[in-house]
């Protein structure tokens, strides 16, 4: 007679097989990078160590610090205000504050550079007032500001949900003990929301590590600069790969810290806040409203205005029928990538949430997610080298040339984005519901269709939309791996802005923003975000 564990092992092996297969797919580019260590170039390393590395590491750390500060202050602060206080326009603002997410970092960067250009309005006004003009390219604050403004929604949306799900009784108890709004924020809500905040922050920081467009526009040298230099200046894919794997190590550390701070905590759904618990004086309410609208006007209004002005100037020169094609390609690639990525994220989550999930399985799922921190171009080159080898081996053109390579790149890069929202829904399913259903004899299929799917729906939808928006903005991997005829809006933006033609790049930028805003609006309509 078979023992239970053995029986379990036997039924488990197909799952492990599939998971192992999946993991290999997810890790292929990383493995390709690691194989770079077999091929060393001590001379180039010596050169980098002598000239660049110290500066680059300190620059990168400084930027991470700036983005941490910026996204925390903006993300947590705004979420707190929107959840805990009533003021005019709160409902609108709580949604509109997500919109900067629709803005690609590189677009905001060139708009800022345009607005603060030496010949731009800001500098002219400054010098007319007798002030010395500012150079936003000096120091870290330019890129840190831009990246904070586009990445804070990661922290905002997760901490908003966390705050809103905190139990009202807890807050009322604290209030009755004489704890004011400030005290509740620091001593009750913030500690409770920490796992969610850390999750949002780690996404923002990994995006920062992988960013190339923004830092290049500001000419701010970071670790990715060294990767590009090794590759483009010294033609050494090996050293580029070695540098990238160091970057990944750093990302793993980031993820590890996030894990540690989360501990074994599970965020189960509790009684939600039905209305903001703190009341403000009439004046303070309007003040808060004004503050938030002002913030939006600065971060979203000015860029939109600038882009529209540029677009109006160049409309006749730039617009043609091909835009419909680019718009469609962007939509199709994003939809397709979102479906595939979320389907796999769901599958991985289902495996991980099993009672008998092995340590190996849990660990491998964690590792499978680090592709997010890979700069797109590094990822793309890893994939290309690999698929080309496969093509040669199997004597086919199947792997490179179609959409396969591109979809693989999106999958590896964005599985982390899809994984989070699905996982948080899985964690919020109360075990007793499942027990109850099982005790009532529900079949596997029925459990999946009638219990799990409805409970997971919000998580699945938000994962779909997040990946959708990320893919629509993605540039380096798309640029390198797209098949013929699949040019996207992001590519058009790059082609024009790389030649310094920012005015003409305004039209594709606005269209891309439109797609993002549509995505967010859809999320709101479907009730994924409140």
């Amino acid at each position, binding site marked *: 007679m078979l023992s239970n564990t053995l029986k379990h092992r036997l039924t488990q092996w197909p799952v492990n097989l599939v998971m192992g297969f999946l993991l290999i797919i997810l890790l292929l580019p990383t493995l390709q990078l690691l194989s770079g260590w077999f091929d060393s170039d001590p001379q180039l390393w010596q050169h980098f160590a002598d*000239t660049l590395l110290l500066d680059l590491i300190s620059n990168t750390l400084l930027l991470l610090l700036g983005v941490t500060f910026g996204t925390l202050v903006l993300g947590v602060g705004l979420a707190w205000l929107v959840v805990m206080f009533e003021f005019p326009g709160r409902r609108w603002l709580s949604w509109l504050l997500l919109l900067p997410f629709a803005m690609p970092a590189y677009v905001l960067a060139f708009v800022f*550079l345009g607005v603060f250009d030496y010949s731009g309005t800001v500098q002219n006004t400054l010098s007319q007032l007798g002030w010395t003009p500012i150079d936003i390219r000096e120091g870290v604050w330019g890129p840190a500001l831009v990246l904070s403004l586009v990445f804070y929604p990661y922290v905002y949306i997760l901490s908003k949900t966390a705050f809103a799900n905190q139990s009202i009784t807890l807050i009322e108890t604290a209030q009755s003990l004489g704890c004011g709004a400030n005290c509740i924020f620091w001593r009750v809500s913030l500690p409770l929301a920490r796992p969610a905040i850390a999750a949002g922050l780690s996404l923002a920081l990994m995006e920062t590590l992988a960013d190339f467009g923004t830092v290049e526009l500001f*000419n701010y040298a970071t670790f990715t*600069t060294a990767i590009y230099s090794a590759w*483009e200046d010294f033609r050494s894919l090996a050293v580029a790969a070695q540098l990238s794997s160091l970057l990944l190590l750093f990302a793993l550390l980031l993820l590890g810290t996030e894990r540690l701070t989360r501990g074994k905590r599970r965020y189960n759904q509790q009684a939600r806040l039905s209305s903001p618990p703190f009341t403000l004086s009439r004046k303070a309410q309007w003040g808060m409203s004004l503050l938030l609208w002002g913030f939006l006007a600065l971060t979203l209004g000015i860029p939109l205005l600038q882009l529209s002005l540029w677009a109006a100037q160049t409309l006749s020169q730039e617009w043609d029928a091909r835009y419909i094609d680019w718009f469609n390609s962007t939509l199709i690639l994003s939809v397709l990538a979102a479906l595939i990525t979320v389907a796999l994220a769901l599958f991985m989550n289902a495996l991980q949430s099993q009672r008998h999930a092995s340590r190996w399985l849990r660990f491998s799922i964690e590792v499978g997610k680090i592709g997010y921190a890979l700069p797109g171009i590094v990822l793309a080159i890893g994939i290309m080298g690999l698929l*080309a080898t496969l093509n040669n081996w199997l004597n086919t053109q199947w792997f490179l040339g179609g959409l*396969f390579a591109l979809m693989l790149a999106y999958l590896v890069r964005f599985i982390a984005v899809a994984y989070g929202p699905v996982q948080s829904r899985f964690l919020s399913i109360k075990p007793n519901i499942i027990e109850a259903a099982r005790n009532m004899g529900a079949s596997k299929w029925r459990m999946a269709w009638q219990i799990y799917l409805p409970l997971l729906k919000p998580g699945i939808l938000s994962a779909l939309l997040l990946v959708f928006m990320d893919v629509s903005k993605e540039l380096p991997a798309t640029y390198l791996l797209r098949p*013929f005829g699949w040019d996207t809006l992001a590519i058009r933006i790059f082609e024009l802005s*790389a030649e310094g033609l920012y005015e003409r790049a305004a039209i594709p930028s606005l269209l891309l923003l439109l797609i993002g805003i549509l995505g967010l609006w859809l999320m709101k309509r479907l009730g994924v975000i409140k």
Partner: protein
Amino acid sequence: MKHLVNLFNTTRKWSLALGLSAVSGLSLSPGLVGFMALGSIGLSSQVMAQDEALVIYSSRKEPLIKPFLDAFSKETGIKITLYTGKDGALIERIKSEGASTPADILMMADAGNLGYAASQGLFSPMQSPILEKNIPAHLRDPQNLWTGLSIRARTLVYSTERVKPSELSTYEELADPKWQGRLCLRSANTVYNKSLIASQIAHNGEAKTEQMVNGWVKNLAAKPFAKDAEVMSAILANRCDVGIVNTYYFGQEMAKQPEAKIALFWANQDSTGTHINVSGAGVIKHSDQKANAQKLIEWLSRDPAQTLYSEANFEYPANPNFAVSPQIAAWGEFKADTLNLGKVAQLQENAVRLMQKAGLQ
């Protein structure tokens, strides 16, 4: 007609996507089916690849060359598929694709990358009396693996309000302390700066060039800029007095604001001549349409393409038999550096090493 083609392409793309979404949406074991779906994408878009057209891989951005290619297709009836990307990435891609590459032509925006592609064995030599007649030898690869097609000079630009042309002379002289706090440069990682410094190494040797770059860094008025256009707008805004730019960016700037108080100065006229660089192209070794590919490159070396280079892009024609547009003619004639650009390509790596050592960002 164009709209119909668009509509057809789009419908085909959407049906591909929707078919797949139905598969992955209905599936209960999304992992496996997802992977199968990936497979079918590989196949179906393979069918979509256009096989008859001449395929160009280009690091020249689409807005800069589309007008040329459209004109060629109209004249000859040969269809062209354009695929743009970054220089290094395109070269890697062709290497990866090996014998099955769909690419027939590789087009690059500078000699350094053309030279690198040649050194990687990507090109097949062109036996072309037309090119030999049309394009001067120093703008071509010695083994005829690639040829330059348009020229732009990288030279000094200065404020006509604060600098007299008599104060200017050479690239080297910009290292003089008299320019302290008055110089603006573009970042070191641009390929145009790599080529400029490589040509300096070829003429003056490593040590002297290093001295010069150190001097430049000391004279900088602002952190190096990401674009040539920003260098000019910094000069216009009184942030600095002199900089180094490509002539076609200067042309773009003047087209935008014809009254701008900046002008070009031809560097090193009494010595080596002003540094020039080319955009150019070569035929891919594994191309299955070598004749047509060479035909296009030859076409680009003569009328009407050569005139278009100066009219549409503010560049100089590589073919000396063509006059430049009046706007470019107004910048005056200059003596160009005749150093073979293949040499420049070889020295680029040393140039980067040197700039990074000098701390030029």
